């Protein structure tokens, strides 16, 4: 007999998946073929590998260790602003890295608020460049993610279990041993793996706060091989090393990870009976809020003054960024929607696999590969913007699919039979049922894609010539030229654009959406 009828066609999705696989695997193959193994790894390369692993390990450890008390406090306290704080914990995901770094510099930097404060007592200013700066920035980005993941695990503990323990007369410590300790043991390895994987591929943080022989990550070394030495063979060799590292880690992280960290339902507070003084929880909540809000507040304050002091080139860069983000979001949806549809219509494991390939390859590795592939045909710098949009879309694809696939699956299962019995065509089902029903998820995915692309400082640094820049790159250049006022203004503009794009698309998706 013919195979079971489906209301949607998997073929466009299979096509999109093949394109994505070709892009990622093709660039990886280019990297592998171009890598010059003859030279082997220099001592500097080994130092880069060591530093990459060290900073990722420390970043993951600090993020997770600090996340546990914060999540515990959030899980068991109710207070005004709790929802807002939890929502704020989702913000760093779409916060442009360069904006956060500027804020961190203004707070923790040599002439930042804390150094100024220390100076009052005649103490030397703190130094932010190097290993501790990189780790600090990574903790800033990943503490919120870790908190959300741990909080999620906390909320998943059935309330009955706390009730039973309370009924048995367990005090705080006994409660911890009985319920929370086993839960943390199950959860934390996965959170550590996810954050470790994220920190391995972080480029912009190392670019701005690292550098020098003692604080260069592999990603940064790829960039330097490109821009300083223009040694494609070495860039490719480093890319191959980075690829092996990220692919292995991504596999481990995927195995551990269950939730996605931006799910909902985190606003429920658990009813607890083990009491305990709220002092500790209050301390952790305030400390986390201050740590996250201070750099952002600083960017806003300094940016307002800078907004009126920006060279026209910043506005040009902002326009370029908006166009790149729009193009990248369009490409993202053109790939993700058919792919999600295909995955929803049956067992298309390969489509799903190609959707998460992006997690295994870092933007700079793909950028290197594309550079190698494009160079014989055209001048890569003239294609800097399209390439940036494309790579941004490929990098956002795993997240978009995580948002879209469950909804597509749900809607196909729910309405598929009715559509079939009405003799609806696959195209009609896609346009009249699937797309309208998925609007909230499409808006959310598009918002994430636009914000990620808007704030991205990765491939563009590899491809761009001095005449062209996206806003994040322009801010980086202004910082390098010590035009801090203009950089702060640009950062505020970028913050507004990223968050605005996310808000607009996410809201647009939910506007008048029927339940």
């Amino acid at each position, binding site marked *: *007999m*013919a195979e*079971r*009828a489906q209301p949607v066609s998997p073929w466009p999705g299979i096509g999109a998946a093949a394109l994505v696989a070709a892009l990622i695997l093709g660039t990886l193959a280019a990297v592998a073929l171009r890598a010059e193994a003859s030279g082997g790894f220099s001592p500097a390369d080994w130092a880069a590998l060591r530093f990459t692993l060290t900073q990722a390990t420390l970043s993951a450890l600090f993020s997770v260790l600090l996340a546990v008390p914060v999540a515990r406090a959030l899980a068991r306290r109710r207070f005004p602003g709790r929802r807002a704080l939890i929502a704020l914990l989702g913000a760093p995901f779409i916060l442009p890295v360069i904006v956060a770094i500027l804020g961190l510099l203004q707070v923790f930097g040599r002439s930042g608020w804390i150094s100024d404060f220390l100076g009052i007592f005649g103490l030397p200013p703190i130094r932010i460049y190097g290993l501790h700066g990189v780790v600090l920035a990574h903790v800033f980005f990943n503490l919120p993610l870790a908190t959300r993941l741990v909080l999620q695990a906390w909320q998943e503990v059935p309330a009955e279990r706390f009730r039973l323990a309370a009924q048995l007369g367990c005090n705080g410590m006994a409660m911890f041993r009985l319920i929370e300790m086993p839960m943390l043991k199950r959860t934390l390895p996965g959170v550590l793996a996810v954050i470790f994987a994220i920190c391995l591929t972080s480029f912009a943080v190392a670019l701005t706060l690292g550098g020098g022989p003692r604080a260069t990550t592999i990603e940064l070394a790829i960039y330097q091989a490109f821009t300083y030495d223009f040694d494609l063979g070495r860039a490719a060799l480093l890319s191959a090393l980075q690829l092996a590292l990220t692919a292995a880690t991504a596999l481990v992280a995927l195995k551990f990870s269950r939730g996605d960290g931006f799910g909902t339902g985190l606003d429920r507070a658990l009813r607890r009976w083990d009491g305990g003084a709220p002092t500790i929880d209050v301390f952790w909540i305030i400390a986390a809020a201050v740590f996250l809000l201070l750099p952002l507040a600083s960017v806003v304050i300094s940016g307002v003054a800078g907004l009126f002091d920006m060279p026209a080139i910043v506005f040009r860069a902002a326009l370029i960024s908006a166009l790149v983000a729009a193009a990248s979001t369009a490409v993202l949806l053109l790939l993700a929607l058919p792919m999600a549809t295909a995955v929803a219509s049956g067992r298309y494991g390969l489509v799903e696999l190609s959707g998460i390939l992006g997690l295994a390859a870092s933007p700079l590795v793909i950028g290197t590969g594309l550079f190698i592939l494009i160079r014989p045909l055209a001048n890569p710098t003239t294609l800097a913007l399209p390439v940036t949009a494309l790579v941004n879309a490929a990098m956002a694809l795993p997240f978009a699919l995580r948002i879209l696939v469950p909804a597509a699956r749900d809607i196909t299962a*729910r*309405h598929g*039979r*009715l*559509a*079939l*019995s*009405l*003799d*609806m*065509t696959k*195209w*009609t089902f896609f346009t*009249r*049922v699937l797309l*309208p*029903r998925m609007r909230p998820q499409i808006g959310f995915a598009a918002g994430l894609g636009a914000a990620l692309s808007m704030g991205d400082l990765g491939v563009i640094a590899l491809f761009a010539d001095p005449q062209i820049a996206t806003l994040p790159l322009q801010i980086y250049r202004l910082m390098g030229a010590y035009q801090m006022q203009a950089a702060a203004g640009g950062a505020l503009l970028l913050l507004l654009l990223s968050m605005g794009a996310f808000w607009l698309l996410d809201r647009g998706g939910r506007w008048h959406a*029927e*339940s």
Partner: protein
Amino acid sequence: MLNLDDCVIENGNFTLNADIQIEVGSSIAIIGPSGAGKSTLLETIAGFRDLKKGQIFWGGQQISNLHPGKRPMAMLFQDGNLFPHLTAEQNIALGLRPNGRLSRDEDAQVQSALGRVSLHGMGARKPSELSGGQQSRVALARVLVQRRELLLLDEPFAALGPALKADMLDLVADLVAETQTTLLMVSHDPQDARRIADQTVLVADKTVHAPAQTAKLFDNPPPSLRAYLG
């Protein structure tokens, strides 16, 4: 005549044998213990499940290879019979034209179907703005404009209260009588069967039994039905 010719239906490691004939224009209740395969049978007839063996004929034509939408039947499911983002009118219109715009004449048919199920003037409402009973009426109005020769009901009114359910069944009985539609209706309630079905098919012991007179069957039930009725 609907003819299930020596059919074997497989669902996981569960099999169901069916070899029955159903007269055109009859109203059949399908009754039996839960898990016996009542819904599975209906889904197979509608084309959502493949036959392991055997064939299904309608009026002498083999239909068991047809796509669900090409079979001469309309089906109402336990839930999800309306698209929540479309208005009542749009939902009904899908019965006439699943893939396009309505002509003026077809639009009139939609309006008359709305009227037939007593939903005058409610065409612009979305399902969330209608009560459970009204939603069922919209689904029935769509069945009406579909003009299929068979109507399959997989307990679409199960969530309604007893009085409302009785109303719906009476409406179904009127509609199938007006249009000479053959009705197959899954139910777990003997009252439903007595209410609108002249014949009843018992699904039990991995077998779809031949239709029997509803009143006779319940007045003198075979052992497997007696065990179910208690």
